[in-house]
């Protein structure tokens, strides 16, 4: 009864209207960004598949006419425009006048240069209107058309000067058929390693990110809660009432976990929308391509099957272990925050005390995003594995790639680490330390406060 009374109070302090509003805004922001990303990738796809080109043909010969015909045969829409070449070389007024964002200019004498064996010049003008991904979209369709122009000229030269047929030229340009094989966990599957790592990155990013968010939010919440209680002296009022200190401690930790989980669920939903916008189309493309190209080594596999075959997907047992590891990491974060929060004597010392916890959470997170921690040098590995949160970030990878010893050692280390922290937290909460200990740099101020008695 008392515990629930305390838990309710802690939750009311942590999950305020402002906190819920922040969560709602964050969710909306993610959804909004996801939609922008979806629109951008859609536009990009549209541009790539549009196969259109705007050309200013200053040469106007049979050769260029034939070239445009060949583009049309390859289902590339060619729009011819008449322009006068700018004397100062600035194409901005030309693009503006014609309402274009890109233009391919075939200069006078182009055909003659090809005929004479010179390296013919072609100008590809593009307007950059911004720094975002969408600003590069417009040129994508034109690039494909320009590549076709290259092929046409190449084929013409090969046939005319060297008597090489178009088919032979294709064979010269693309002489090999590549079969990509991926080896992992002692097995081989006929899939592209980049496709596998792409999918795995999308999967393995989610877990460290969730851990990162939960620990960050939970830690800062509990640090603020405990230090505010201490600074406002509500802790003295609370602990002089007939409640056990352990139940106060547990209520605070439980509320922090609940609040952190709620935040993470909201963030998770937001991430699904956002990541859906970022990688949704790409992942779909990869799967389709692989299904269309069955391997010879085994049965026909799509990417998901290949990932599973290679032992790179997670089993329910492994998932349970990862969840356990995450739970211990969260508990470590909360215990650390609780102890450090109890050291705070004012808002300034609180923010100073938050910094080391945030660094411990952030350093292994960012390293784990960019590389596999097990590929680091010995010193780097030791440094990162001393940080208890690293084990949660690396848990999935360690289990997938059979580094079971590293996983279990990490889990044992975390359990011991948590045990020590919990012992310290209980010791602090059930002794004078809760009221007497303070941040070393705040000693002078603390003494002044104590002197009030």
């Amino acid at each position, binding site marked *: 009864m008392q515990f629930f009374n305390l838990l309710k109070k802690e939750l009311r302090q942590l999950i305020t209207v402002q906190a819920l509003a922040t969560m709602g805004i964050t969710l909306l922001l993610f959804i909004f960004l996801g939609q922008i990303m979806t629109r951008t990738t859609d536009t990009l796809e549209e541009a790539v598949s549009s196969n259109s080109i705007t050309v200013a043909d200053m040469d106007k010969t049979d050769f260029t006419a034939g070239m445009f015909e060949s583009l049309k045969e390859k289902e590339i829409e060619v729009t011819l425009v008449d322009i006068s070449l700018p004397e100062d070389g600035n194409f901005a007024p030309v693009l503006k006048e014609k309402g274009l964002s890109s233009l391919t200019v075939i200069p006078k004498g182009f055909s003659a240069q090809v005929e004479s064996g010179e390296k013919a010049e072609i100008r590809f003008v593009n307007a950059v209107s911004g720094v975002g991904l969408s600003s590069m979209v417009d040129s994508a369709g034109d690039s494909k058309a320009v590549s076709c122009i290259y092929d046409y000229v190449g084929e013409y030269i090969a046939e005319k000067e060297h008597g090489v047929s178009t088919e032979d030229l294709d064979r010269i340009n693309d002489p090999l058929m590549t079969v990509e094989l991926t080896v992992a966990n002692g097995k081989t599957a006929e899939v592209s390693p980049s496709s596998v790592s792409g999918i795995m990155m999308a999967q393995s990013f989610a877990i460290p990110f969730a851990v990162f968010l939960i620990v960050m939010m939970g830690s800062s919440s509990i640090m603020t809660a405990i230090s505010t209680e201490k600074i406002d002296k509500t802790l003295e009022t609370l602990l002089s*009432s007939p*409640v056990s200190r352990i139940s106060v401690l547990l209520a605070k930790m439980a509320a922090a976990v609940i609040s952190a989980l709620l935040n993470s669920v909201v963030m998770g939903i937001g991430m699904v929308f956002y990541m859906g916008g970022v990688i949704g189309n790409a992942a779909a493309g990869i799967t389709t391509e692989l299904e269309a190209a069955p391997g010879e080594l085994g049965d026909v596999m799509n990417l998901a099957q290949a990932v599973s075959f290679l032992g790179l997907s997670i089993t329910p047992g492994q998932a349970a272990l990862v969840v356990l590891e995450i739970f211990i990491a969260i508990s470590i974060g909360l215990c650390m925050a609780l102890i450090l929060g109890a050291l705070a004597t004012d808002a300034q010392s609180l923010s100073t005390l938050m910094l080391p916890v945030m660094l411990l959470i952030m350093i292994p997170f960012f390293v784990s995003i960019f590389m596999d921690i097990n590929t680091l040098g010995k010193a780097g590995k030791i440094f990162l594995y001393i940080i208890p949160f690293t084990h949660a970030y690396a848990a999935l990878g360690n289990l997938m790639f059979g580094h079971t010893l590293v996983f279990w050692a990490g889990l044992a280390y975390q359990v011991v680490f948590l045990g020590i922290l919990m012992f310290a937290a209980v010791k602090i909460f059930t002794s004078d330390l809760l009221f*007497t200990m303070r941040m070393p740099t705040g000693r002078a101020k603390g*003494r002044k406060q104590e002197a009030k008695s």
Partner: protein
Amino acid sequence: MSILSVQNLTKSYKKGINAVDSLSFEVERGEIFALIGPNGAGKTTTIRMISTLISPTSGDALVCGNSIVKEPEKVRKNITYLPDEAGAYKTMKGIDYLYFMAGLFFDDRENIELSVKRAVDMCGLGNRLEEKIQGYSRGMIRKLLLSRAVMTRPALAILDEATSGLDVVNALDIRNAIKRLSREEGMSFLLSSHNMLEIEYISDRVGIIAGGHLLEIGTVDDIKRKYDAPNLEEVFRKVNSGQPSAEE
């Protein structure tokens, strides 16, 4: 029987330096006892020990016969403590805060309701109790906390600077309420204050503390007579002259 019996209470934060040194005094039922002393005298340390927030290095204190060392849970059922410059949970409404605190003392609805009604009547905040505490003035918070401190009818209410932050009228109301609760309901009070005039007006007995030692104890009139002083401030000056501050 004494409600509070302090027996050679000692607290040492650093080895060899006692913040509170062998303090002994008693508070009877219905008595208002005040500890007065300069900054660093050991008042807050003494109060924190009696409130079971910190443990004594040696000695003991009995609240309603229960030891603060051996039976702190039983002690906490009989006391309430109001720290100096204390706040309340800002995100709670005043009324919710009262219900929350009453719920820590009682399991049954009837006692919780009775306690809250008592606090509502005493604090005089009216409809403002339905507002969140973050919008309260310092004086309003103090009134809320004081009513909280007495609503559960504790045997001993420990108040550190009871009326700090209150204007003259409100401070007078609180002093009168403390007197009434001690006379009519037999509630005992252990006060700590720098305000000598308030202590003189309200207390039955005072203890003058400096350097962790209890230098004088008695009724206000007796002490004034002993030191041939017109008021407690003058007594305090005479008693305290030459006393070093305790290192805490």
